[in-house]
């Protein structure tokens, strides 16, 4: 790791203000940031530890929703009784990811902000437009089996690795933030992640030094909650394809995909086709897909997984 100075923030406001220091980054759990710092992919010169600024609560909101603090650990979020009963898709998604040790340390905001595991992003000997803008994309003509089939560009085909984010996309989560000047705002998760386009190094719509304070879930929808993750191993592996689904009594549903795109992939207007059938729905959902030869299998894998989820969970 490159040398850095370190401070422990005491409040969200103080953390956001401290972030204006050049080369500063927030440190929450650190399970992704420290991994990248050891490889010198991330090179902050100043770390602001936000582990103890009081953002570790899960609280109900007046309209029946749930506000999840940015520093809530993944284990605690998955195990929360309200999440398990009313937002089970979120619990299932969290439990499908990482390992027990990682879930105990990783946080809500860190999970949203974690970076791709594309092997070329990780290999600092290889050209990578995300890591070094303009250097090229080694993945497009390389080993791309695990990478994106949709939402990608000629500059980058990296996927977002988070399971939690897929569930939050299906749940229409709102990401709440505070800026250094103290102003707060809420960013719908559907507007939080940027697609790579020509600038794969820009991953979210957060402004510089903007701190995520919480994630807001709307009032529970009921219905059947499923998170089906297809991967090479039974545990402790990233998704090739994952399907997060909320299936409601009236036959409608909300479905988001993981493992196939630079962000959780959802198409709200396509969801009216869920009742028509998996084939029609998947076809709309994956319209415009540009897979590589190595990952084209994901297109039929998505359809079959959605078919399975719908068949197994329809009464």
């Amino acid at each position, binding site marked *: *790791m490159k*040398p850095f100075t370190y401070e422990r923030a005491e409040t969200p406001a103080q953390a956001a203000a401290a972030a204006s220091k050049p080369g500063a980054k927030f440190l929450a759990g650190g399970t992704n940031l420290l991994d990248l710092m050891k490889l010198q992919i991330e090179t902050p010169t100043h770390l602001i*530890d936000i582990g103890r600024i009081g953002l570790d609560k899960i609280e109900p909101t007046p309209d029946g929703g749930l506000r999840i603090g940015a520093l809530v650990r993944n284990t605690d979020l998955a*195990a929360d009784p309200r999440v*398990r009963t009313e937002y089970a898709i979120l619990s299932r998604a969290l*439990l499908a990811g990482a390992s*027990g040790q990682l879930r105990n340390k990783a946080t809500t905001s860190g999970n949203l902000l974690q970076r791709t595991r594309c092997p070329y992003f990780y290999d600092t000997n290889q050209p990578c437009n995300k890591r070094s803008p303009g250097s090229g994309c080694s993945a497009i003509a390389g080993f791309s089996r695990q990478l994106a089939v949709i939402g990608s560009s000629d500059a980058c085909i990296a996927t977002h690795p988070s399971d939690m984010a897929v569930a939050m996309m299906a749940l229409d989560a709102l990401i709440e933030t505070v800026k250094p000047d103290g102003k707060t705002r809420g960013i719908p998760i559907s507007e939080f992640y940027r697609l790579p386009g020509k600038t794969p190094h820009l991953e979210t719509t957060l402004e510089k030094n903007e701190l995520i304070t919480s994630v807001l879930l709307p009032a529970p929808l009921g219905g059947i909650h499923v998170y089906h993750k297809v991967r090479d191993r039974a545990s402790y592996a990233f998704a090739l394809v994952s399907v997060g689904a909320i299936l409601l009594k009236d036959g409608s549903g909300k479905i988001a995909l993981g493992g196939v795109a630079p962000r959780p992939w959802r198409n709200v207007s396509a969801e009216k086709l869920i009742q028509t059938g998996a084939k029609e729905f998947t076809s709309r959902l994956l319209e415009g897909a540009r897979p590589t030869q190595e990952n084209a299998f994901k297109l039929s894998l998505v359809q079959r997984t959605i078919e399975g989820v719908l068949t197994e969970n329809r009464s």
Partner: protein
Amino acid sequence: MIGELVIKRASKISVECEIKNKHMENENGSAGITRREMLAGTAVAVTALAITRVTGLEAAPASPIVTPVESAGVSFNVNGKAVDLEMDTRTTLLDVLREHLHLTGTKKGCDHGQCGACTVLVNGRRINSCLSLALQHQDDSIITIEGIGTPENLHPMQSAFIKHDGYQCGYCTPGQICSAVAVLEEIKAGVPSHVSTELMGPMEFTNAEFRERMSGNICRCGAYSNIAQAAAEVAGVTG
């Protein structure tokens, strides 16, 4: 001036090597210089040249290159004992435990949170100590394998690992034991897992649950089935 001296010194070493080489050639395979000595001699010669190139031809004596290092302080509790440390900010909890506190039971397997050999308990929770900065643990209570039990006073999980042959090389074992101890607590506390059929309700120790919950601890020797047996015994589940 220094440059000249250096060249002479390097030459002297090369000459020594040459003499030794000739000695080897003449001797037809008996005694003489070994490959190891030859390589060591060459390396010294190359190093001598390299070091002096760095310092150039100034008259001043060579000084080491110093990378500025940031330090900070932290205090926490390890195995019941209070510690107060000042170290490079980059020091992970794993490195503080092993290098500064000489608690070498916890192992560095991958240093990237993928193998679980570095698992320790922090405030009762298992984490990968390689992906945590020591500085993040102000006032925390940390238990390493040394605090789980000792040869004179084994933890039941340690006895069970011995009884059920739960290790071969032993490298992953401290992490396996710390993790397994924590898994039993997690099950008791009702924390669900990926394989739990019901998200709510009491969690049970089953082989499937144990294997899922331990998926962050890998074992190249493949002692998995014996580890699972050991944990099952401690959990009071037989068969």
